[in-house]
């Protein structure tokens, strides 16, 4: 179950999976905070309990968690139970949320890859450009962005070619159908 490197790639691959198995494929969005180790938990409990014993001055203690707030994580997962195909995408950027959710909306409406790529770039153009510009700069996104762009370019020609540009695994799933 691979983690895809760009949200665009995730949406495209998910669209292909949905296209192949429209009835059974489900998409789960998980918004979660990291679990605490027992030590961290104990520390936090302690700092929470202390002020209660001393009573009064609750205002000062409520601000203590502000010193180190764990960063939440957003994980998107497209899963098909029949074939066991799982596609995942993980991010911790709040700026990506609304774009991802609108993408999921398009997937729910049965959008195919071509319409995702074309219309996906259109309405969110301003924000999307910034996202794409940022992503490669962060880490290994450079590698991922090139096939994604190729796929986007070839979408106008054939969806089959787009699949080839994306992932080999997906292609097998389509062939079966």
């Amino acid at each position, binding site marked *: 179950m691979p983690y895809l490197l760009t949200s665009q790639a995730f949406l495209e691959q998910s669209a292909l999976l949905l296209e192949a198995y*429209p*009835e059974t494929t489900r*998409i789960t969005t998980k*918004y979660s905070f990291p679990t605490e180790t027992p030590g961290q938990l104990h520390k936090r409990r302690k700092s929470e309990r202390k002020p209660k014993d001393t009573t009064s001055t609750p205002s000062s203690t409520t601000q203590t*968690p502000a010193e180190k707030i764990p960063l*939440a994580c957003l994980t998107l997962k497209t899963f098909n139970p029949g074939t066991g195909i799982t596609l995942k995408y993980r991010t911790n950027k709040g700026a990506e*949320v609304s774009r991802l*959710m609108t993408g999921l*909306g398009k997937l729910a409406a049965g959008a195919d890859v071509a319409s995702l790529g074309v219309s996906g770039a259109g309405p969110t153009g301003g924000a999307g450009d910034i996202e794409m510009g940022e992503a490669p*700069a962060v880490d290994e996104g450079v590698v991922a962005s090139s096939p994604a762009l190729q796929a986007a370019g070839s979408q106008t020609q054939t969806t089959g070619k787009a699949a080839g540009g994306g992932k080999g695994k997906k292609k097998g799933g389509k062939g079966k159908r």
Partner: protein
Amino acid sequence: MAPHLSHDEFFSSLTDLLSKTSQKSRGSVYLTQKPMTDADSSNAQPSILIRATDGNTNAPNPKSADKSGKSSRVTKNKSTKVKMSTIVNPGDLEFFYARYAEVCKTGMAGLKKRDRSKRKGKAKAKGGASKTEA
């Protein structure tokens, strides 16, 4: 199983759930979407079933409950689990998801905020790196 909520009810309880989780900085929220497969699924487009749950992650940790001495053997208490669901007709999808995205964006406050000073910092880091190289 609890009955499906209307969109308004769903959004208000989802907002509640997300903000609670964000405030606590603990736990998870799972949002699932899948097509409804009814007998009349032969129609062009199925309705979408949306589910939201906290996966019972907001339940107290049984280990810590042990330590405090109260309720040593906690059986898995499912009554603390929050879950809700709603059904979206194909016609309402666009409108629903516009609201859905808005609720998620505001509710998921625990994610990284957009960093305006990032570009500056990056430029600096680049300059520093090139200096060290030279």
